[in-house]
């Protein structure tokens, strides 16, 4: 699990659109995976993790309305001392913008893009994990990438203006 944690975290962030939700999603995914370790034997680990992440994400969405609300305060609002840590604001900003764009995609497009371009599954693996045809994954991926490219290009144009 720790070996795949970074990919899992990025996937969770892109699915949920928020770092806080991504952390919760990864935690819950890991709890589910560790509760049933025998299922890892005959299946590729990262594909299995993506399957559990997807199921956890969908079930979490269904119960989201029953969860306590969590307010996020931007770190800039706190007069914090210098950290001296390896926090990378540029990378974090880029990830925030890109993952927010992905999170705004229709759910099927989002899952296809996360499975292939973030988790790194093949089209065939993604189709199996997402319980659909390989051709469907390809179509969803095409449209997801097109929407992401156009949205990011539009954002960049607004900044230039």
């Amino acid at each position: 699990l720790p070996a795949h944690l970074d990919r899992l975290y990025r996937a969770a962030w892109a699915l949920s659109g928020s770092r806080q939700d991504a952390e919760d999603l990864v935690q819950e995914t890991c709890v589910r995976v560790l509760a049933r370790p025998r299922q890892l034997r005959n299946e590729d680990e990262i594909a299995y993790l993506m399957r559990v992440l997807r199921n956890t994400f969908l079930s979490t969405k269904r119960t989201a309305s029953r969860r306590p609300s969590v307010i996020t305060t931007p770190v800039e609002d706190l007069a914090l001392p210098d950290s001296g840590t390896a926090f990378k604001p540029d990378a974090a900003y880029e990830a925030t913008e890109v993952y927010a764009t992905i999170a705004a995609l229709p759910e099927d497009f989002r899952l296809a893009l996360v499975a292939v371009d973030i988790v790194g599954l093949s089209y065939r693996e993604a189709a199996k994990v997402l319980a659909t045809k390989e051709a469907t994954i390809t179509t969803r991926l095409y449209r997801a990438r097109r929407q992401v490219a156009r949205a990011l290009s539009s954002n960049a144009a607004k900044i230039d203006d």
Partner: protein
Amino acid sequence: MQMRDQPNNEEQLTRLADETLAAPAREALLRDVAESPELAAALAEQSDAVRIVRSIDIEAPAALRASVTALARRPPRQRVRWQLALPSSLVVGAAVVALVLALASSGKPVTVVRAAHLALSAATLTAPAPTVGDPATVTTAIDGVSFPDWRARGWQTTGARRDRLGGHDIDTVFYSSASYPAVGYSIAAGAPLKVGSVEQALLIHGVRFEVIRADGATIVTWLRDGHTCVLAARNVEAGVLLHLASWTQSSSVT
């Protein structure tokens, strides 16, 4: 030029952009792209998205990694295998005994709020001294996780206590400043404690801090190396506790 139908173009452009298109089809499509501005634009969009999304290499926060690592280190759930090997009546009997033992030994599950009661209690031990040669810590630590020395911020240690709660060893150090008479800082060994209802959550320098209000106290909790840390006080604003907590997390205290 013989243009392909649109769905076929979409599929092949998708694969061309991430280099999974087989060589013969690739060469044919590249020829089409060279002659069609529309196809070239579509390929550029696909390639841009692939490049941008795949270039993000942001890492999971340290606190999340510590938490998952602690989860992974837990012993496997043996009862799953017992169910395969033992008759169901024995499994039920064993489960009942285990449940009774667990209830007898630990009572209610250990939550952050329960741990915070220790941080709000009186000291039973003398205050720990600053660590010689390390301005960031005092001499008390649990499983290698040290308590901070906040003298540079105007806080002195005033006492300590050591407790055992539901199988968790919990050390607490008490601090005071000119403005605030008492803040308790507890660190619980073992698996992360259950957090419960959170009023506010903040991500500071990649670490998730959660604010809880309970029993008239303000509580801030977060993880350090998989250990649950709890700062609790009465009549102290959450912002003050968050400053202390985040300063600890970002300093050389490990």
